[in-house]
């Protein structure tokens, strides 16, 4: 069993290496949008709106917004990589047709994609975190060490949603629908831009979004709020979503890649 686990992990790691080799070829083009978007948002909304909004729970609006930018980077990195990115590899580039003739199986492909999603989101989330630190937007500077870990944890279930979409769409244009009706609402309504405290209905709905739990964990760490009960709740649900969505995505992708 341990041997099987080790072999499977090694094979999944090869998938990560393959993605890294392709990714680094176009490094600048690959990292720019996921870093530029949160930086722009922070400038336009954080700096622009701060004077009008005043404080939220003792934080300036830019400080309020800051951890959400880490979450945003992680969400978009994970979703675009596992939707458009995976779909292109699967259909137009036939990457898996050849890969699956080697000892690598569908399980390793999916685990490899999740590992890759974790690593990429950790890298990007960490980078945004350092940027926030230099901007003086972190009440708890130590949060920069927690950001990569939480970004990765947040990225895996969001990546699973992307993989599910890849397995279900009939053509590449349909990702736009998934984005408009699922990812965009998750993004705008999960507490990144405004606190959900006094909105009882929305507060309940967002519990079903893994993104929300990641956002909360990032916010708690960035703002230096140590609430063990709340941390356990969000972390627990984030891991539960990771397991549930991850397994579902694996089954769906397996059906697509083996006939």
């Amino acid at each position, binding site marked *: 069993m341990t041997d099987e686990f080790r072999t499977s992990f090694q094979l999944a790691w*090869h998938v990560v290496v393959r993605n890294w080799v392709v990714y680094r*070829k176009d490094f600048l083009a690959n990292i720019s949008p996921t870093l530029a978007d949160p930086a722009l948002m922070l400038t336009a909304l954080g700096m622009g709106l701060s004077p009008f909004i005043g404080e939220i729970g003792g934080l300036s609006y830019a400080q309020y917004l800051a951890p959400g930018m880490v979450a945003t980077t992680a969400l978009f990195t994970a979703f675009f990589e596992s939707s458009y990115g995976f779909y292109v590899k699967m259909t137009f*580039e036939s990457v898996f*047709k*050849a890969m*699956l*003739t*080697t000892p690598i*199986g569908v399980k390793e492909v999916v685990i490899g994609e999740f590992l890759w999603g974790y690593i990429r989101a950790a890298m990007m989330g960490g980078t945004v975190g350092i940027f926030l630190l230099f901007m003086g937007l972190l009440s708890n500077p130590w949060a920069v060490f927690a950001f990569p870990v939480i970004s990765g944890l947040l990225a895996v279930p969001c990546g699973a949603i992307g993989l599910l979409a890849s397995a279900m769409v009939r053509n590449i244009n349909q990702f736009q629908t998934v984005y408009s009706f699922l990812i965009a609402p998750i993004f705008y309504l999960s507490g990144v831009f405004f606190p959900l405290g006094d909105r009882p209905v929305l507060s309940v709905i967002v519990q079903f979004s893994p993104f929300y739990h990641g956002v909360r964990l990032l916010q708690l760490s960035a703002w230096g709020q140590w609430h063990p009960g709340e941390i356990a709740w969000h972390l627990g649900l984030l891991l539960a979503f990771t397991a549930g969505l991850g397994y579902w995505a694996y089954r769906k992708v397996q059906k697509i890649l083996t*006939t």
Partner: protein
Amino acid sequence: MVGRCAAEAPVVLALCLSVPTIGRVSIAPDTPAAAVSDAEPVIVARAVAKKFGDFAALQGLDLEVKRGECVGLLGPNGAGKSTFIGCLYGAVLRTGGDLRVFGYDPAENPRKIKERLGVVPQENALDEGLTVMENMRLYARFEGVDKKAALPRIQDLLAHMSLDHKKEAPIKTLSGGMKRRLAFVRALLSDPEVLILDEPTTGLDPAVRHLLWEKVISYRQAGKTVMVTTHYMHEAEILCDRIIILNRGIVVGAGAPRALIDQETPGFVATFGHDLEEQIKAELQTGWELFHQGRQCCVRAPRIDDLLALQQTLGATALQLRPSNLEDVYLKLTGRELDDND
């Protein structure tokens, strides 16, 4: 085949227009037949079935491939060749029957099989953005080739396929023939015991085709097992000890190429224009067959002299006069040869 035809009737040699020149490739089997017949089977299929919804792609396929054999799978598009190949390494999950590769069930233990199998799929599926070396290094890793051993192995294989001058070239700059050769290199990285070739030479020019044939033959000389699907009968005759013809998901004929020809379509074939059909019908003798290939009218007779005499009677020279070949067997068994009543 050419030798036998020449021994029977020297005049035929000049008339064997349809038998392509074999050139540099030897057609002699490289593994003695007796050794193969005693060898253990590496692939055993019993009543293998595969349904895609209502469509039955494989309907109870029975076949066996022994170690050291080269087996050709022939059949029209949609006959189930690629589906069966997919079943061998778990890319396609069969819906019935029993299948064993190296004794393992590919539906349950694909990795054990894939560790010992090299596959050249119909599509090259190379990473277009990467260079030749980057692609091969990644695949050596996937195949579990030891890091130190990988580089010399890749270099040897690239040189063997005349690709060593393209090491740093991005895949998208390679020609179709180069990409195909690289797909061969990829399949051979782990020095597999069994090589599976799914239409390996479709769309390639004759020079590349000959090069790949030579590689397959030298690979076989090393005692390896090969399974190849192809639409080229000549390729099947050159490479394979045994041919299995599929039609609509079942085996309709199997045997050594020469034995299949002798069994299914023995004799010689003369091809005439369709305008002579009525006259030919009048001259048909017992044991002769009349059939059509395209708009041409063909007569199959046991002896070459029968056809030479027919030419004289008709006062016309045949468009083609040749010994029966694998294509005749293929067309007959897959029902693509239309007989006189159709």
